[in-house]
């Protein structure tokens, strides 16, 4: 098993875990974490894709760094919103999903 394949599989696994978390969790913070997991998995996968031709490709790295910045700002906004919502409504979940287990 070569490095890139391992990376790719890891990425896929992260996406899978994140996806499971996204569907199963009602708690909004968990969902934010799940999004981050998926994002990270994709970046890992992208890194693996960059190693495809053997020679090192700088572009994926530039992309990943940009992506992480974007993901970070998205997470910040998301957490801010979740906190504000929890303060305003007293619950960390969306109103339509309150009753669900």
């Amino acid at each position, binding site marked *: 098993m070569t490095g890139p394949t391992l990376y790719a599989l890891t990425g896929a696994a992260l996406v899978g875990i994140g996806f499971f978390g*996204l569907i199963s969790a009602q708690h909004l913070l968990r969902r934010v974490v799940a999004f981050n997991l998926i994002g990270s998995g994709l970046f890992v996968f992208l890194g693996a894709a960059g190693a495809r031709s053997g020679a090192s490709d700088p572009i994926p790295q530039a992309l990943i760094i940009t992506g992480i910045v974007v993901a970070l700002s998205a997470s910040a906004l998301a957490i801010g919103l979740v906190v504000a919502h929890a303060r305003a409504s007293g619950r960390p979940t969306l109103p339509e999903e309150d009753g669900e287990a």
Partner: protein
Amino acid sequence: MSALVAVLVAPLIGALSAVALPGRSGRIAAWVAIVTTLAAAVALAASVISQGMPRLAVGSWEPPVGIVLEADGLSIAMIVMTALVMTAAALTARHMLAGDTKGPRIAFGFWPLMLLLWAALNAVFLSRDLFNLYVGIELLSLAAIGLVAIEGKPEALAAAIRYMIFALAGSLLYLAGVVLVYGAHGALDIGVLVGREPAETDGLALALMTVGLMSKTALFPFHVWLPPAHGGAPAPASAMLSALVPKASYVILLRLWFDVMPDQATDAALTLVATFGAAAVLWGSLAALVQSRVKLIVAYSTVAQIGYLFLVFPLAGGGSEDQPWAAGAWNGAVFLALSHGLAKAAMFLAVGQWMKVRGSDCLDEMEGLATAMPMTAFAFALSSITIVGLPPSGGFTAKYLVMTSAFAAGQWVWALVMACGGLLAAAYLYRPMAMVFRRADLSAFRLPSRAQQAVPLALAGAAIILGIASSGPFETLAIGRPQTAEAGL
């Protein structure tokens, strides 16, 4: 070339200044940015029409390494429409947000978010790089979510979070597609990808990106986040959100299916996309029909109108691509997007002024407004004409083109869906219109100034003019299109 840079940079700098500079000077900076961007948008359009498409490889790095910005007809049409809607929203926002009791957060947050949104929109319209587009729509979503949540009410926050979940999911799906494309071709520039060797993963990549963008465009069945979000935001924000934000992801979809991977599109897939569009038209309209708040009616109308935009796929893509009607359908769809943008913004701005007067947007509270504020009522009526697709309006021109294509292609189902959608639109827009027209005495209420009322009227008028003077915009749209619209059919 400088205009190309200015439409991106001016709003960004304005956003930063509005945050950084205190109080009044921040507001002034925002206005300088707005005026500059508007001017730049017009200048860019003028230069594209007169001198052809400007292309900017950022930092002189050519693809596949560098990033390219390019303005074609579609871009400048969208950019100019955006500039008009943004300016109009800003003009009314001054009045609607001033002296509000909801605290300083709105006054503080609105201008930077709005400018950020504008910059992101322009970036999406100009980018020729799939990853850059990802950044653009992500930025767009974040600014839009911020605008939804800006009033801080619990329902608005919930709506914002819901919006965020859909938007993030969409972004990630899109990102996954981008990763697959890069993995297969080692390039993300559209210009480079056009000439690629098709790879096995292209289908999956297109599927991921399409579903992701569908979710961001709020296509049925992923539309549920839209009405509460657009209905809950302050009116100028709703105008921008409804008129512009879905168009960004739609433009990316157009570029994907018609520029990047036209070879991947099968008739079945195109039909599937259009089926969702048709479902959106019908469902959105029916849902709008039963709402009792005007803003929700208008928001659900957006859901339905987005559906129209997707009917174009089987008519202009796949096997239809080389047919004579393809250009008509494509043009029609873009025209629809443009006229919907103008009209929907006008509608939200008009409703916003009514809400400001009556303190609520319940249908029953709208009595007598036609007499008290005839200009906004007229603006609402003109926008309705565009949304319903009655002549003479941009909406009609668009519908005519798409329907003609549908019949010519033998796919008359889409034409019938459009016809039904138009009728349903008339039905749900008639309710607020009739209520507004009812006689009631509103002399005790403080009314906005005539200048304020004129803003939505101007936007709605623009949507009508788009229908009357449509040949100019048509030629513009043809710039940079491989298959140009010949003399119809």
